[in-house]
């Protein structure tokens, strides 16, 4: 088993909650989490519906390994239609919330409709209640979390919550759980807020006792933990430096997008990378990084727990920020740093705190600020728009200010909340938006890492590194080294990463395990935990089925193969420096082969044959 086989359906329009059995047929085909919830979404919503209207649904979903003792088995995802991209949104988060859902006895919570007034959902084991949240509306995630803890007087509750940015309609608002873990991308927080749902509070004391073969499971889990511990990336690099271990690496290979991707290397990378977080500060002798923190059951512990220099301009009069909280991860550090040209690690940490405090995706936020800075330097956006702020590349003040106004949805922050695509369209320069399908890029320039260009262009949720992380192969040599500047062979590589990732996500595990684990390490854990036979081959099949299900949803939502592309800058403007100097993305060379491998038409359309092959719903 390992599924609780129970889902909670919450109708916000009627204010009702009811439980229903999990569709096990679907679970056999889609495993759990990302795949299974998408199957529900496909079944239950019109792909063309208004993402911010009552017809969209929001699904919080766990995998069969969520809440088990498998390393990193604490993930949950939020699945809905994205307001940022119009495509399927599936945002994955760690922390402890997902495991607690399982301990309370739920595989999934489906929210439908829209509440007339703000509410939050309180789940205590098998009892779930909608509670008024009028007093929480208008509060940040951190304030609401505090208020909910006060109210329920239980230090052990786990809370997922949206902040003011979501309430104000910021299109890349995140759902933040455990104060600084987030279902970050694609505006899932915006959807949650659109339903007048402020938070979900969960407490589970029933536990997870339904592993299919406990002794076999313990054995495979122990073997898996050993592999993670002995691997240089998961055993040493990530615990010590977090994902920030990548900052200098990616800069050196010439794939660190800088200043809205005008440049490909950042002169200040060394100031904002993983090593810099260990450097003692002048003011108090303490480093930015206090310790590393793990998500539930994670034996890697890449999470950063950081402080901001109390003398830094951003917080010197704000003791409420003198605490430890979630520090810089690589993607956030890149978006807030190199992409905006800011090399002030305290400013980055402050902006990151604000992203957590008010629930914003720091990748989309930073990239949007970067686009706004380019628009400012181009003279399109002026101090009249910003109310006086000089929105220049490299300005730490501008970054901190932008985070403050966007978090609260004030003034120019409303424009920044539109995301890069809509912002650039609004100001008449759509070509300056570094997005795919409306979602901002993460921290790898596809000119310097060719496979990532294809991964971004074809990602089912818009530009994203977590849908096919070929960086592992192209830079880190995992599972085998490929040349980052070579586009040949990348179609198959991208497809393999995409399918594997979908399966790993759907199990409830963290994708970072795959720095060390292959599917041969993962499948046995799923197999021991779940009923039925879960071989490596079946896992890969499930992954591919999920991929195509998502793709089919997007097609039905009106997103065609024409949108499998990259901004002109990456296709036409050669990289300015580094090993990739002069190179553009060879997307056009990779895409046809990719479509062929996927069984799509030459225009990228889903064919009936492929649909039938994977038994996708009509």
């Amino acid at each position, binding site marked *: 088993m390992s599924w609780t086989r129970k889902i909670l359906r919450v109708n916000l329009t009627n204010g009702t909650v009811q439980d229903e059995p999990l569709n096990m047929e679907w679970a056999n085909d889609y495993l759990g989490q990302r795949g299974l919830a998408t199957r529900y979404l496909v079944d239950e919503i019109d792909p063309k519906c208004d993402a911010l209207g009552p017809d969209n649904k929001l699904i919080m979903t766990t995998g069969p390994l969520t809440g088990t003792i498998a390393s990193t088995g604490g993930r949950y995802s939020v699945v809905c239609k994205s307001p940022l991209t119009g495509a399927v949104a599936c945002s994955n988060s760690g922390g402890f919330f997902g495991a607690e859902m399982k301990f309370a006895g739920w595989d999934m919570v489906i929210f439908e409709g829209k509440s007339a007034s703000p509410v939050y959902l309180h789940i205590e084991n098998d009892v779930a209640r909608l509670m008024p949240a009028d007093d929480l509306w208008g509060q940040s995630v951190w304030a609401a979390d505090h208020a909910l*803890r*006060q109210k329920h*007087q*239980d*230090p052990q509750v786990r809370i997922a919550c949206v902040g003011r940015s979501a309430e104000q309609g910021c299109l890349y608002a995140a759902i933040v759980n455990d104060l600084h873990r987030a279902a970050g991308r694609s505006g899932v927080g915006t959807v949650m807020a659109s339903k007048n749902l402020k938070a979900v509070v969960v407490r589970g004391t029933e536990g997870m006792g339904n592993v299919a073969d406990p002794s076999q499971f313990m054995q495979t889990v122990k073997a898996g933990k050993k592999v993670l511990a002995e691997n240089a990336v998961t055993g040493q690099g990530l615990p010590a430096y977090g994902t920030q271990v990548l900052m200098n690496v990616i800069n050196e290979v010439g794939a660190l997008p800088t200043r809205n991707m005008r440049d490909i290397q950042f002169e200040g990378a060394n100031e904002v990378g993983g090593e810099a977080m260990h450097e003692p500060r002048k003011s108090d002798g303490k480093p930015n990084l206090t310790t590393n923190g793990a998500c539930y059951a994670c034996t890697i512990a890449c999470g950063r727990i950081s402080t901001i220099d109390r003398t830094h301009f951003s917080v010197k009069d704000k003791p409420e920020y003198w605490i430890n909280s979630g520090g810089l991860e690589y993607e956030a550090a890149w978006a807030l740093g190199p992409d905006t040209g800011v090399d002030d690690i305290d400013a980055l940490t402050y902006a990151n705190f604000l992203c957590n405090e008010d629930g914003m995706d720091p990748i989309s936020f930073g990239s949007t600020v970067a686009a706004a800075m380019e628009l400012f330097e181009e003279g399109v956006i002026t101090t009249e728009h910003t109310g006086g702020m000089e929105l220049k590349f490299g300005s730490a003040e501008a970054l901190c200010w932008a985070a403050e106004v966007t978090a609260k949805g004030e003034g120019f922050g409303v424009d920044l909340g539109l995301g890069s695509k809509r912002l650039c369209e609004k100001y008449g320069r759509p070509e300056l938006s570094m997005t795919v399908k409306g979602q901002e890029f993460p921290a790898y320039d596809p000119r310097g890492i060719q496979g990532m260009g294809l991964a971004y262009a074809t990602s089912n949720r818009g530009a994203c590194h977590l849908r096919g992380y070929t960086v592992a192969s192209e830079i880190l040599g995992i599972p085998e080294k490929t040349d980052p500047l070579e586009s040949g062979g990348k179609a198959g590589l991208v497809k393999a990463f995409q399918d594997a990732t979908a399966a790993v996500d759907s199990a409830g595990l963290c994708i970072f395990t795959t720095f060390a684990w292959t599917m041969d390490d993962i499948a046995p854990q799923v197999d021991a935990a779940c009923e039925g036979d879960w071989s490596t081959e079946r896992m890969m099949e499930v992954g591919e089925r999920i991929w195509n299900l998502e793709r089919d949803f997007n097609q039905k939502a009106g997103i065609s193969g024409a949108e499998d592309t990259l901004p002109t800058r990456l296709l036409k403007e050669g990289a300015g420096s580094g090993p990739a100097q002069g190179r553009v993305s060879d997307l056009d060379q990779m895409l046809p082969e990719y479509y062929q491998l996927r069984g799509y038409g030459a225009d990228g359309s889903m064919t009936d044959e492929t649909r039938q092959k994977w038994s996708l719903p009509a």
Partner: protein
Amino acid sequence: MHYVIIGAGPAGVNAAEHLRQYDPLGKITLLVAEDVPPYSRMALPYYLADNIPSEGTYLRKEPGHFESLKIDLLQGRASSIDTQAKRITLLGGDTLSYDKLLISTGATATRPPIDGIDLDHVHNCWTLKDADKIVASTRPGSHVVLMGAGFIGCIILEALAEREVDLTVIEMQDRMVARMTNQVMGNMIKDWCVSKGINVKTSTGVTSIEKGTDSALLVHTNQGESLPTDVVVCATGVRSNTAFLDGSGIDIDMGIVVDDYLQTSVPDVYAAGDVAQGRDMSTGEYHVQAIQPTAVEHGRLAAHNMVYGHGVPHPGNVNMNILDTAGLISTSFGLWMGVEGGDEAEMCDRDNFTYLNLQFRDDVLVGASSLGMTQHVGVMRGLIQTGCHLGEWKDKLMKAPNRLSEAYLACAQSQHKALGPV
């Protein structure tokens, strides 16, 4: 050296064992009043509820435990003590000499002086024999009136409820377990009992009991009610067993007066447990606490002082209680009722029957009480006993009282004031 211990409850048994530990060669005689091996009164309710056999109540389970420690068990009751001659006279006339004496005779249930209190079918619940009588006379559906919703009453209440009897509780005070609850908590316990189908009449007294016609008994209350019932269980109070000490020269107040070495007013005579009026750590005053942990600690401390002489004075025991009232667990510690000029933090969730009340003097926790909590409750004792300064954690607790364990880890652990053995 001959040590004699009168009374084989937890204080007496612990004292005997520690005497043996401290003095391997001395002669130890433990006087057992009842015709059964030393047993725990605390376990009686579980016997009553059929959860354990009578052997399950025994303080020590190992066969030959006392023999192996060369502790002589002597069945008998003391009738008087000649402290000059250091000689005890037993009921029946036998005598027993001692060099050092520990009195740990505990307490006895009392019955209020009302008409009919001595009728058949009116029981105490104090001894194993009492429990046997209640077991024999009740079955599911039997009507039972329980007089007294104090600490003992509530424990019995749990056991009676588990016997599925039709239960009515009559309590003179305005709330349940007034000795360990404030108004809020007492009422929450009452609400809980009512929700479990138990009739609870607070601020009500029994005026008389008479033989019934349709039922065994008829209980009359000062509210003008007459309740037919099969059985009355009387749990209205206890008193220390000190009657046999008349003329011994040993000072008696509410219990036997002891000093900070648990010695009575007469040299070489000590007292421990429910019979002793020992020092209360929180108030510095001398009270009969009548609780298991204090009895045990008294026993150990008395044994220590009897063997080694008087070294470090006893700082007193933290008064504390834990009670399971038909499945609802309540605790109280130290000055749970608060202190003048102190601060109070309260958390109350009536719907879920959870409650926590903390009492501070400055930034030191001096008392606490809780309802519906089972995890880490011992830290309340830890914080009170260490008397540690909570600093900023006091403010945190004022806002979120249930962050107690964190406060304990952050403060008591790091200030590590001695939590040494008593």
